[in-house]
């Protein structure tokens, strides 16, 4: 398994790219870095508010244009500049943006990029569930760039933060490609209540709209009415379902679904699994069995997507780690982004385990699941 390699990858890549200077190489390379050129690694976790300790009095004056000083105003201005396309994601995230916008608004009021700003920025990222490590890393990286590139205006500040977040997200790699052979099998896994069935339906709907032949496997045989829920969704999507009775062996459902898929010439099989707490050994074993059944039957590995609820805290890292032990985790679907939660835990997960985000769910409608775009996410965040 390539897992060992994968763990290290994001950090290494980050360092490598940092050395080249990220998005604005000229500015970064012209000025000698005052501090260590190394990007902070996990060692920095013990430094909660580096700015306050390391750079007292190193305030940078912030140039604030008329009317830019209040947070509300730039929020509105932003809404106007966006198209309808992104409005829903932004609307949902507006509350988070208020928190994430606070450091900028406060800095604007003080007219200074000072230690307080860096502390606020770190708090804001922590409030977004990014985790202390990721928050420190992003703030630290942004600080170096802002200092060396001489960024002096609000929009510039925000831009740097966006780029750093997007950069970090990109460093987690990409969703594995669809297998050449048919059918391509996608397992949707996750803890209880994160929206696996809905996500299964939405992903199925997407493939269906692309003209693919989709089949659902109702492998949530545990939850009361789990199968019925999948059937209702499948009906809405207009795709067939393979189901057994409640309480049946989910691995058998997978087996039958794959048989049926081969017989019917199906392109994509979506396996909706039962929600399970990653701490339940027997349930994780059950999942592993389903995975092995599919792998053996296909002769090539299926894909798996871990559904993570945007409200999830740092426990998401533990979820991803343990689910990743039961199967090869390909990517994460970040669900329920239409609430006030920011889903920053994907930063913590990616940083730790190098798992990218593939989808983002922004509403209850069938089409409210979209491929994840790091830039868009970062923009919505800041």
């Amino acid at each position, binding site marked *: 398994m390539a897992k060992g390699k994968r763990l290290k990858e994001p950090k290494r890549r980050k360092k490598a790219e940092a050395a080249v200077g990220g998005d604005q190489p000229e500015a970064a390379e012209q000025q000698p870095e005052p501090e260590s050129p190394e990007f902070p690694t996990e060692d920095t976790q013990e430094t909660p508010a580096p700015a306050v300790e390391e750079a007292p009095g190193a305030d940078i004056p912030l140039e604030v244009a008329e009317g830019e000083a209040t947070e509300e105003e730039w929020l509105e201005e932003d809404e106007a500049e966006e198209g309808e396309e992104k409005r829903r994601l932004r609307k949902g995230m507006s509350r988070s943006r208020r928190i994430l916008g606070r450091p900028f608004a406060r800095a604007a009021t003080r007219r200074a990029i000072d230690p307080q700003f860096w502390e606020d920025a770190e*708090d804001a990222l922590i409030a977004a569930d990014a985790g*202390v490590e990721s928050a420190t890393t992003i703030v630290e990286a942004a600080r170096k760039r802002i200092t060396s590139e001489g960024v002096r205006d609000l929009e510039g500040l925000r831009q740097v933060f966006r780029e750093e977040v997007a950069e970090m997200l990109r460093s987690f790699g990409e969703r594995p490609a669809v297998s050449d052979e048919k059918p391509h099998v996608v397992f949707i896994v996750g803890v209880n209540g994160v*929206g696996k069935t809905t996500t299964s339906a939405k992903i199925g709907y997407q493939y269906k709209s692309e003209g693919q032949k989709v089949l659902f496997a109702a492998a949530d045989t545990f939850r009361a*009415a789990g199968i019925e829920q999948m059937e209702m*969704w499948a009906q809405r999507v207009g795709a067939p379902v393979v189901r057994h009775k409640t309480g049946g062996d989910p691995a058998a459902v997978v087996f039958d679904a794959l048989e049926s898929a081969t017989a019917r010439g199906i392109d994509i099989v979506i396996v909706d699994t039962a929600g399970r707490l990653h701490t339940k050994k027997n349930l994780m074993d059950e999942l592993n069995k389903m995975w092995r059944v599919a792998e053996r039957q296909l002769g090539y590995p299926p894909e798996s997507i871990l559904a993570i609820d945007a409200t999830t805290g740092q426990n998401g890292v533990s979820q991803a780690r343990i689910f990743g032990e039961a199967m090869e985790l390909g990517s994460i679907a970040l669900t329920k982004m239409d*609430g*006030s939660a920011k889903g920053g835990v994907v930063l913590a997960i990616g940083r730790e385990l190098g798992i990218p985000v593939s989808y983002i769910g922004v509403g209850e409608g069938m089409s409210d699941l979209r491929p994840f775009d790091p830039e868009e996410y970062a923009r919505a965040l800041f």
Partner: protein
Amino acid sequence: MFESLGDRLQDVFTRLRGRGKLTEKDVDAAMREIRLVLLEADVNFKVVKQFVDHVRERSIGEEVIKSVTPAQQVVKIVFDEMTDILGGKEKDIRFAPHPPSVIMLVGLQGSGKTTAAAKLAVLLHRQGRTPLLVAADVYRPAAVEQLQTLGTQIEVPVAYYKHKSALEICEQAVKEGARKGNDVVILDTAGRLHIDTEMMQELVDIKASVDPSETLLVVDAMTGQDAVNVALTFLETLEFDGILITKMDGDARGGAALSMKAVTGRPIKLASVGEKMNDLEVFYPDRVASRILGMGDIVTLVEKAEEHMTEEKARKLEEKLRKQKFDFEDFLEQMQQLRQMGGLSKVMEMVPGMSGMARQQGLDVDDGQLKRIEAIIYSMTPQERHNPHVLNASRRRRIAAGSGTSTQDVNQLVKQFSQMQKMMKAFTGKGAGGMGMLKRLFPF
């Protein structure tokens, strides 16, 4: 689920204990670590700030710095603050003076309302009540079926009326409950986003109409920093009375639970701790706090020890321990203090892992034995008490006769005493874990 948070905090405390006297710098370092631990456990960042500030303020105060056992004092402060954050004593569910009482469950999608509703019905049924479940989630596909299936499983009736709005279902169900003699009606409402004003209005309408005696916000234990936003919005619009935490059987570190009470002022009343239908429990903040700190009831122990031991005595004892001059006289004194504290078995119980550890080391003392030991020591001459090595066979026979015990008993005590001295050496060294912190208090 709080264990891992507890472990992390224990590490911090262990490092803290490694230092004799605490300087402000030591406290600051510990507070930085505590901050990190709490943030990683998803405690809301504002709550963390407040918590750490409080603990720091109290920890660098006079009482701690001058105390003989500063590290313990800090632990106790952390405990106090944590219990405070969690809400002190447990709070009961409220019932209406005239049945049926209506309990309304609200929350985000996926927080576990439907399962929690069924579990609550089981809990109430166990208490001798006759609950009626109401399927008021008319939006999620198969939600009604889910509750009906659960109802059949736990043998609790489920009310549902086709083609009605959630409000109508609730109103009608409460009437049906009254007619059929159900004394509790549990409303399983649809999950909704707190920022969805239309859907929130539905809850407001239901609440106004059926007047629940208890409205519970159902919160997933794995929720991160946003838990607070959710809770606050629900509080603003709905004025819920308490919180029900679900999925406590995962390995989440429980930060959301820790933040809830602090931010909303509403107590956590119930916690779902497993998959089984009878895995819903009353939430005990103080017990949870001691579990988080991985300390059993060590706080009571510290308090009791302090009650019965003056600083002067503690210092003397420490001195003796360090110089390894601990004798039967001191042993006797310690034992008497121990008895004042409720006896050895009580003390052992309060220290996590202590009884097991002591047994492993061959130190097997029960409370009845303490009396006998006392008698034996009383039968010793002062010289014998100070210099146990003079105890030859003839002396032992005399002591046995004098104390009404057998020579074997005396032999055993002498043996145990020397073992204890060995153990104490280990205590005074580093890394004795839970036992290490007790080294100055009593050397048993």
